[in-house]
């Protein structure tokens, strides 16, 4: 028995940290953010070479056949460098949906392409979590109508998985007739989500009509977990950037890191952050090894790390003083990444409400 990363996972962690840190010095992060595409071919191809896009895809479909916890190790690294790639949609949510609910033919068609980096998926499930500007997509016969908001990673996607109610999910090519894709620009320019409008689009339904209930459920769960791991990585970096800056920056003839106020801000940040890594890990572990425990742990993990990151993004910026407010330090790229993660696939308040229902504390 051991709670923690295996030696293999530590190697994986090291190689991805090296890869993302090499690829994404601050100037490159800034440059790519300014493009607002949520994608970079060079990084994407590198990830494919490292077998990342197929991390949870079984070997029989051309993937690495690893577990969700391995994916989390990668996601932490991607968060650490606010990596502009459609990884959550393509390499986590789409494979989970396909593996859970796809027909054998659908798996054989799409999973090898994902693993090989030949296709990028955006995933539209927002309306199953909450409705604001859109009531989502409806299916009548085999035709889809409606619009899906905040399709995860929809910006650079070639293909979409769009939920139509809780039981159906359609595989929709971006260029299919009747599909209109509109980019939604959030404050985070490192990933691009979209609105997808469907007008009489003929549906290829995941697993057939009414067969996607479980696929959608797990796809949302995995997406939330991915965002939690991404936030964890980004938030940890913010803390250490603050600590390092405080050690360098002098005011009143002292490094500001020697002021108790600054020290305590840093102590509070790491305290809020650190335990959630274990909860995220456990939720990832449970995904494969103790499925019945996954849902509640994912809900608690994402809502918890979102709250911790809210505190950290502000406090780390304050430690940086005025410099934290400028683009010179670039801290805001991390700030914005965790801000948007918080709002996607369920705000903390919504997740906690769901957790009450999931535990039977409250009627659904």
């Amino acid at each position, binding site marked *: 028995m051991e709670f923690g990363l295996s030696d293999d996972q530590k190697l994986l962690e090291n190689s991805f940290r090296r890869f993302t840190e090499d690829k994404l010095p601050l100037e490159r992060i800034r440059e790519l953010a300014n493009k607002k595409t949520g994608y970079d071919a060079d990084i994407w191809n590198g990830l494919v070479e490292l077998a990342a896009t197929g991390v949870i895809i079984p070997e029989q479909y051309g993937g690495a056949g690893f577990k969700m916890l391995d994916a989390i190790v990668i996601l932490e690294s991607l968060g650490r460098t606010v990596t502009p790639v459609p990884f959550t949609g393509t390499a986590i949510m789409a494979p989970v949906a396909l593996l859970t609910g796809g027909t054998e033919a659908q798996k054989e068609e799409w999973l090898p392409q994902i693993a090989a980096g030949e296709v990028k998926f955006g995933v539209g499930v927002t309306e199953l979590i909450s409705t604001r*500007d859109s009531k989502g997509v409806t299916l009548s016969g085999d035709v889809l109508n409606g619009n899906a908001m905040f399709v995860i990673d929809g910006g650079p996607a070639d293909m979409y998985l769009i939920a139509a109610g809780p039981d159906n999910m359609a595989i929709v090519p971006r260029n299919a007739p009747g599909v209109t894709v509109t980019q939604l*620009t*959030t404050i985070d320019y490192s990933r691009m989500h979209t*609105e997808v409008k469907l007008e009489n689009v003929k549906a290829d339904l995941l697993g057939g009509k009414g067969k996607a209930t479980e696929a959608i459920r797990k796809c949302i769960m995995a997406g939330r977990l991915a965002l939690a791991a991404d936030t964890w990585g980004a938030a940890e970096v913010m803390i250490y950037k603050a600590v390092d800056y405080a050690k360098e920056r002098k005011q009143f003839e002292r490094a500001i890191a020697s002021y108790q106020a600054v020290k305590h801000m840093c102590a509070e940040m790491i305290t809020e952050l650190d335990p959630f890594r274990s909860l995220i890990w456990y939720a990832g572990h449970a995904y494969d090894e103790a499925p019945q425990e996954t849902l509640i742990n994912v809900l608690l993990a994402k809502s918890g790390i979102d709250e911790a990151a809210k505190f950290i993004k502000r406090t780390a910026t*304050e430690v940086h003083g*005025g410099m934290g*407010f400028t683009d010179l330090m670039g801290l*805001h790229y991390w700030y914005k990444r965790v801000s948007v993660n918080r709002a*996607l696939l369920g705000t903390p308040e919504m997740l906690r409400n769901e957790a009450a229902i999931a535990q039977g504390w409250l009627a659904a």
Partner: protein
Amino acid sequence: MDLSYGPEYEDFRAELRAFIEKNQHKAPPPGMGMKHPEALEQDWQKLLIEHGYTCRTIPKKYGGYGAEPDILKTVIIQDEFTRANVNSGLSGQGIGMLVPTLLENGNEQQREKYIRPTIYGEIHWCQGYSEPGAGSDLASLRTNARVEDGHFIINGQKIWTSGAHFADMCFILVRTEPEKPKHEGISYIMMDMKTPGIEVRPLVTMTGAAEFNETFLTDVKVPVENVVGKRGEGWKVANTTLKHERGMLGDPSQLLSRIESILKILQNETLDGKRLIEHAMYRDRLIAAQAKTEALKFHSLRLLSHTLKNEDPGVSRLIVKYYGTTLSRELSDIALEALGELGQLYMGSPHVRSHGSWQWRNMFDLGLIIGGGTSQIQKNIISERGLGMPREPKLAETK
């Protein structure tokens, strides 16, 4: 406690309401002040000054309305413009900081020359205090000036010079006596922004906009008579100004109108078919923030009363910046969090609410928490000056 709205004030309010009603078509939209005042703003400002609705207590001979301080009228003016959501005249660092400083520390010639065009929006000012290495520890600034031929020759770099790219003038702190202890060698100088040697570069912030600038100064020549107060006494002079700045930042009427805007969001937007206001969590947070805002509103009145009577309100004044900026951030947090994913959309995006101004506001609020004395500095001030707790003890010499 005497808050009686006697007949004089009721009349005043009625007149003001009638004025706003009749003239609001002439008013520019309430703005962020990120550009030089144009004719529209200047005309509106002139009208407001003529009626005593802005620059009320600035003496007539300098172009103001020349009224005696009257808290109730000040409050009525704030109230009514906020209520009507009508532009209440020019603000900014010239009117807010330089003018009070000149009134307190300037000589007659400087007052006559600068106050009138400043309050009429003809001269727009920026502030040159902070430097990249001198933030909280402002007095460690290194921009310096030597004197040659009746001029200061200024060299150095300033940061956070908001509006420097369209400002006409800058009031700047420079080290004129480098041999003196750090607080004693500083002078407060008014500098024409058209002087050769000034280069202004936009400073991009986390909001993506360039609300501020970096200003580089190379052999900038400024006549010696442009010093305010005595040479070497700039630190004292600047502290007058900083005091005014800190007073400006807790503005409760701005916060009150922000609560109104958030309320509209909560009443109009829905989540799962239910209005946001019916979701207890957001409503509860908004009202908790409203309580603090109302408290700040009356607290400000109390401070004004003290000011009028020349009393030192002690710690009560020192808390305002920390309280107000923290509260302001909480308000924009509430707006964003209630909006969920929609709250994360930014300028130009489809579905964005209020043009993304809540995100802008939220980031800028964090900037205000940091700017003009971080919360940590504020808490030092509150505990030391307000509660009489000991200053940071002197350190042993390190080698």
